[in-house]
């Protein structure tokens, strides 16, 4: 609290300032408006200018602008490990925040996604959880329960298919969803602990634990919608919302779209179950992004005030209720109007996987990353142009070119 006093001298409290924020999330426009209102209510004369850039172009815009000495005060950054954010840090475009922002409302896991060299480089804004979302009505109709093992999952799919319902909708054309699917299955089957060994180099992608997972995943495709390799996530969202399909492998952020398309949709979540019933089911959790402070900012005091506010519980509630996504701030109650958030938040706290290999993992810090290799090659496997064994080998070989623990 001493820190807070140190950085808010009385004379600075009423100096008007404009804080520019650049981000890629259009859904945050209203959030920042509310933040401005909240800060004004506290007597801070801060105007927030939030500019949105499409997510695919955001990095180019940011990089080019920063190098030209033109940029925002606060910038959205992605997580660590991650080459883009690391590049910002390595080139001194970001300011470490440990001594100027109160980060007590964040748990270590969230913070670990934006820490490097024992310094914290941003204020996390959201955590995401991925897994299987399912249509409750369909499950109830056929008296299906959330499966506890992989084989039960296959059974559920089989039952649904026999009754004329498409069990899964998979967006094969958008390869990143296939990488995500692989990753969310991986934390349960073969599991969190195994990934831990993998990260230390004590296990390989070519081990039977992993190859069997690939085989089972590949076998699952008979339960996907016909011609799934040509579908996109937009179509997936519509199909799920319009109750044409029972389950999707997706993330909690999907709920906003689904409910907008069909407000009456009753859906729920379960993590991908393990193959071995003695292993725990885990959920893939990662921090979505953070707000970083630009080292070139001319409004650091005002920007820090915004950042500090973004670290409060009040902000967390505001964020979740406005965007329908899960804030990174701990101890925030999810809006009751969104039961899915409540459930997911609870899962985040209870079954988050400690180890992972997709985004926010050490395997994402170099090229080719697991993410990279999975994208194209999962497509190949699903198209029967690659066997599960070959995919496993591709992963192992690719990562071995740079990952220290694999190189020995």
């Amino acid at each position, binding site marked *: 609290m001493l820190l807070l006093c140190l950085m808010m001298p009385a004379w600075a409290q009423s100096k008007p300032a404009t804080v520019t924020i650049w981000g890629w999330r259009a859904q945050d426009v209203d959030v920042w408006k509310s933040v401005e209102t909240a800060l004004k209510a506290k007597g801070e004369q801060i105007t927030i200018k939030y500019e949105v850039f499409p997510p695919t172009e955001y990095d180019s815009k940011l990089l080019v602008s920063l190098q030209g000495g033109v940029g925002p005060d606060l910038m959205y950054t992605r997580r660590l490990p991650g*080459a883009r954010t690391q*590049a910002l840090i390595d080139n001194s475009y970001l300011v470490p925040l440990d001594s100027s922002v109160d980060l007590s409302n964040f748990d270590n896991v969230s913070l670990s996604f934006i820490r490097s060299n024992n310094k914290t480089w941003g204020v996390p804004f959201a955590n995401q959880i991925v897994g299987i979302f399912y249509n409750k009505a369909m499950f109830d109709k056929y008296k299906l329960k959330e499966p506890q093992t992989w084989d039960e999952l296959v059974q559920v799919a089989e039952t649904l298919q026999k009754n004329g319902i498409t069990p899964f909708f998979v967006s094969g054309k*958008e*390869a990143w969803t296939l990488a995500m699917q692989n990753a969310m299955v991986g934390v349960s089957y073969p599991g969190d602990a195994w990934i831990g060994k993998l990260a230390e180099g004590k296990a390989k992608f070519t081990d039977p634990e992993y190859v069997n997972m690939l085989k089972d995943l590949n076998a699952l495709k008979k339960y996907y*919608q016909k011609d799934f390799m040509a*579908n996109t996530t937009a179509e997936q969202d519509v199909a799920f919302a319009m109750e044409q399909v029972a389950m999707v492998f997706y993330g909690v952020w999907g709920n906003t779209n689904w409910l907008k398309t069909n407000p009456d949709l009753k859906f729920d979540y379960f993590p991908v179950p393990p193959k071995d019933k003695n292993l725990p089911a885990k959920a893939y959790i990662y921090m979505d992004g953070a707000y970083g402070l630009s080292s070139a900012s001319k409004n650091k005091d005002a920007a820090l005030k915004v950042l500090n506010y973004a670290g409060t519980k009040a902000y967390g509630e505001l964020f979740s209720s406005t965007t329908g996504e899960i804030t990174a701030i701990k101890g925030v109650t999810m809006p009751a109007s969104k039961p899915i958030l409540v459930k997911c938040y609870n899962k985040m706290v209870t079954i988050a996987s400690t180890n992972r290999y997709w985004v926010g993992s050490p395997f994402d810090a170099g*090229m080719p990353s697991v993410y990279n290799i999975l*994208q194209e090659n999962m*497509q190949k496997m699903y198209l029967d142009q690659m066997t599960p064994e070959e995919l496993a080998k591709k992963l192992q070989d690719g990562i071995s070119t740079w990952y220290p623990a694999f190189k020995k």
Partner: protein
Amino acid sequence: MRGRAGRSLSDRPGKAGPSEARPTLYLSEVDVRKYSFLWMLFPALLLYTVFIAYPFFSSLGLSFYDWPGIGPKKFIGLSNYKNILSGFMAPEFYRALGHNIVFFIWSLILSVVPGLFFAFLLSADIKGTKFLKVIYFFPNTLAIVVVGFLWGLLLNPQWGLVNQLFRVLGLGFLAKPWLGNTSTALPTIIFVTAWRGLGFYILVYLAAILGIDREMTEAARIDGATEMQIAGRIILPHLLPIIATTSMLKFIWTFNIFDIVYAMEGTQGGPAGSTDVLGTLFYRIAFGGLGSSQVGMGLGATVVTLIFLLVFPVSIFYVFIVEKRVERGE
């Protein structure tokens, strides 16, 4: 009677040699007044050099460096080139190059053949075809990403128009996941590109056809030639220069293709890299795509330099050979 545009110079009696009525200037004649016209060239040259040529050529120079787009540059000589042509990135590069070549060949066929066909039709004595020209050119006015986006919807395998139409027509076996199969994705994108661009070729060929001397065709008709013979023996040969020109343009454009693939399959050039072209490869390397942080601007510059080296000779060929022929022939 005023001559028509495109009349042959050879009907000027007594005039031989390459330069017709143009004032030829020799550098030895340092007559400032005679050079006065050159100022008219400067604005374009200046703008172009400062804002296009210089940035590009300095970017091409990046190919000799290792540079992640931010921070210090490290000189590495020809390493990037080695990497792309025979090293780690080589398979991806050659695959993309192969796709560009396929793209060019099919694109050319799909533009020239229907282009000529419809141009012939439009030049015939059929009533009421004027408004068709507008319709045919219209897709060309749409942004490429919009075209890609629209067709992406139409090609949805479950409920998109294309497949629905096939089913309705009893051709259900054709109702495939066009953008989801490695064997059909690239041809589909080529088709969509042709859809957008056909109007341009139709109009250009129509122009060329209409510019042909009527007397020649009338004379042939009187001599008893059929319409087909007229088309093949008189008109087509006359169109060769314009076909050559449009082919050159097409060549340049297809090697720089990016937007349509980006719009229909993303920067990864899926599925499984089957639609990856040099443009998407460059973009991924230089700017990163979904799930791949960039490898480096230096490497990206290498790809662009190689594209440029491939493509520019065609422009040279055009300026020195085709144009000369055109000058002589018209």
